[in-house]
């Protein structure tokens, strides 16, 4: 674990992307393949099933550090991360003799996984003994692995780059091999490094991602060079049809075939050796339904038949990357599109995402104003000559989204953030007027600059009215323009409304709280939105 902890520290200690990649590549080259396999597993965001509840670790640490529970709470307020609090607390205890180093893979197989088969008393005995025998950084990592909360400040694309460097292979090849279902073993890692040619039939391609269009569409040049589609509000997914089977992958590289059996069934009619890119979409009465409907399908594995009837879905296909078992990603979009239409029908569960044919940017712009009513998020603009790329590469694919709904709301509560935002008050609750009271309607965390966060933090501390644990009620003075994607009636919220993806757009220092929006206005937006 020492080597893995040193890698974590090296990544954690630099803001430089190149330095992070270099540290990762060195690790992948030098570490035993079994360890490197597990490191890849964790660094690509995969997790062990949570073995021990964070609450248990806290309770054990509190007992052995001999401090009251409220003091542990204060520590959390300062550090924002219980795994770290626990690791730091143990420092105050007399050190045990350091154990000899155990490799990462052995930690997982011989120590961590077997915990599942033991009772709480035994878990406590083992874990607390490990704490006492490990240096602080390894103790911290152990806690992260035990609670399934391991995260590191490194994007997946960087891990892929580092693996590619170590294997002297193309990043796309590594990305493709990381996408599928794999088990972190020494053999798997060795074959990843050797780029063994035994192809895994389920393996999807890396997704090509669009960038947000910030300039007017006219800057893209001639309208005729662009294929325009509606931007659907569903789950981006890849349908792999090979070896007589069907796999449906989400962009989070999760296999979701079983959640959408009607799509899997429809896909059996697609010729073998085909890979489609598209959107899983809740769809009923000839039109898309809101993302919130689709969420019912995501969460639920039981009573599938019932929920399938209640929330029918379609796979809205918009690209084909593989045809007749041949990778055609480098062929121009126009050619791929023709192939897609030959494979997929215009209706049914598997259907083509239709081209929007409005002839000019102006006409598109007018049509785009209907987006909300049509239940879509705007347009996708794709260059007809473009290949199917990897990751987010600007230039060929754009998402031209509609402006978010906005509302001016008053800051009413604040509380500390997590992780690197610990000890700053960065989680805000906003309210709008209902008569002469402010009703909370949205929580938002993002949208302010660091300087604004710090300024607001200082203001909040000086203008706290009441404290309820970590939550502070503040003087209702500061007005913010909030943006959000959708607003819908809700029985679970006090305001009777649920907003989707709220964030702060502007700090309206010019606006007095009395001029913030009213609940009535929001309800009107919600009823329009439902249309």
């Amino acid at each position: 674990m020492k080597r893995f902890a040193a890698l974590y520290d090296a990544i954690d200690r630099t803001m430089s992307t190149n330095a992070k990649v270099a540290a990762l590549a060195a690790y992948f080259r030098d570490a035993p393949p079994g360890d490197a396999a597990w490191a890849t597993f964790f660094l690509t965001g995969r997790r062990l099933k949570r073995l021990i509840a964070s609450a248990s670790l806290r309770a054990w640490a509190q007992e052995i550090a001999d401090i009251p529970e409220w003091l542990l709470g204060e520590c959390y307020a300062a550090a924002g991360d219980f795994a770290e609090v626990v690791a730091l607390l143990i420092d105050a205890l007399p050190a045990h003799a350091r154990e000899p180093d155990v490799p990462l893979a052995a930690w997982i197989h011989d120590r961590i996984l077997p915990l599942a088969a033991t009772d709480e008393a035994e878990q406590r005995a083992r874990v607390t003994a490990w704490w006492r025998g490990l240096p602080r950084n390894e103790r911290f990592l152990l806690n992260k692995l035990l609670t399934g909360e391991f995260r590191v400040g490194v994007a997946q694309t960087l891990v892929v780059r580092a693996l590619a460097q170590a294997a002297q292979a193309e990043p796309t090849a590594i990305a493709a091999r990381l996408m599928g279902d794999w088990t972190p073993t020494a053999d798997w890692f060795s074959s990843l490094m050797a780029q063994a040619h035994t192809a895994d039939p389920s393996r999807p391609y890396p997704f090509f991602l669009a960038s947000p269009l910030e300039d007017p569409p006219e800057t893209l040049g001639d309208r005729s060079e662009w294929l325009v589609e509606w931007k659907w509000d569903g789950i981006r997914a890849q349908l792999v049809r090979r070896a007589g089977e069907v796999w449906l992958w989400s962009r989070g590289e999760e296999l979701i075939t079983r959640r959408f059996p009607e799509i899997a069934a429809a896909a059996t009619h697609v010729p073998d050796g085909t890979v489609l890119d598209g959107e899983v979409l809740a769809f009923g009465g000839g039109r898309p339904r809101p993302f919130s409907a689709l969420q019912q399908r995501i969460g639920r594995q039981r009573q599938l038949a019932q929920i399938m009837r209640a929330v029918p879905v379609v796979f809205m296909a918009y690209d084909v990357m593989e045809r007749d078992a041949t990778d055609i990603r480098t062929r121009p979009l126009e050619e791929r599109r023709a192939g897609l239409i030959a494979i997929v029908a215009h209706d049914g569960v598997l259907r083509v995402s239709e081209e929007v044919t409005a002839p000019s940017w102006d006409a598109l712009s007018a049509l785009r104003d209907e987006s909300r009513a049509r239940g879509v998020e705007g347009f996708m603009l794709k260059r007809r000559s473009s290949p199917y790329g990897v990751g987010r590469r600007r230039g060929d694919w754009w998402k031209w989204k509609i402006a978010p709904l906005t509302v001016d709301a008053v800051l009413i509560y604040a509380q500390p953030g997590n992780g690197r935002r610990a000890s700053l008050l960065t989680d805000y609750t906003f309210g709008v007027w209902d008569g002469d009271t402010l009703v909370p309607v949205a929580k938002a965390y993002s949208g302010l600059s660091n300087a604004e966060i710090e300024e607001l933090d200082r203001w909040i501390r000086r203008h706290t009215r009441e404290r309820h644990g970590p939550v502070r009620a503040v003087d209702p003075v500061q007005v913010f323009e909030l943006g959000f994607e959708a607003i819908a009636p809700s029985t679970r919220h006090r305001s009777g409304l649920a907003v989707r993806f709220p964030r702060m757009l502007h700090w309206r220092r010019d606006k007095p709280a009395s001029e913030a929006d009213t609940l009535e206005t929001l309800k009107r937006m919600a009823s329009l939105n439902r249309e």
Partner: protein
Amino acid sequence: MQCTVSTNSTPGTFGIMSALITDSVSGLYCSAGDFFVDPWQPVARAVITHAHGDHAHAGSEAYLCAAPCEPLLRRRFPDAAIQPVPFGEGIDLGGVRVSFHPAGHILGSAQVRLERGGEVWVVSGDYKRAPDPTCAPFEAVRCDTFITEATFALPIYTWDPAAGVIGEILEWWRANRAEGRASILFCYALGKAQRILAELRGRTDEGLLRGDAASAGQGRVLLHGAMAGFTDVYRASGVALAPAERVGEHARGRSLAGTLVLAPLSARGTPWLRRFPNPSIAFASGLMRVRGVRRQRAFDRGFVLSDHADWSALLGTIAETGASRVLVTHGWSDALARLLADRGLETGTLRTAFEGELGELAAVDPEGT
């Protein structure tokens, strides 16, 4: 029992009958002796624990401080009336016997002991228990009432020995030198910077400071201009420090590759920093104990080196004083006061004019408080 005295309140007595020290709008006040301790407004007579800006404010008519503190105070207030008193020597102020005792925080830092009619109060100022080559070690003083700082009063704050931390700094510097990078180490200009220089002096065996042919110009330690004055005072006071020169006005680029540069946090984000080639940025402070704080402030490295007492040092010190009443100020004072109250001590918290509470530590360095 617990009582809270908040900022800008009217004069308070912490709910204590016949208190030797009360809380006033100008700071801690001893009415029997008619003097203030570390007042934050100009007063007639100010007794000063140490020369940091939030303890020693300009404009008072007369200052009293520990003898080794005088040159620092004199540098900050060149024309002030300052009376130095040797450590341990008592003087009488209106029937109150006042003496200074080493606090181990920075050069000249002192606890102030007040005695009248057999009752003893001690104002700790800021203090630490870890050894520091730049100042006299903390001396535990028995008292009835102890006014203690609580800057890092949480059990997550446990300091590793400074020797190990200095070793980490040297290792970081060495790695940066190998890559031709400058190592910028932000640290408090008065106290922390000189402590680091003193610790580095003990490490000349590392061959870093000799400037021999193999490492010509490489092992140099440089100082930001804002630190040079205080550093001169330390040297003049006889504190042995590693050689360090000011960053030259026109020096930039390759001539600064491989140097270790001590600078105050205020220099961050200024054009001054641009002269250094591909600098690695670090911060030396007790704050760096928490990973989230370091990352939020986007430092490459954080070195946990504090001039304040850690959790066990605070509790140990409070026990050593034998005080039955403990008043707590700075930082996590609520937490410390509550814990002491749970253990049966009479406690209270006391906020300073400059600090709402510790949450703001993310924005400032408490090492200079």
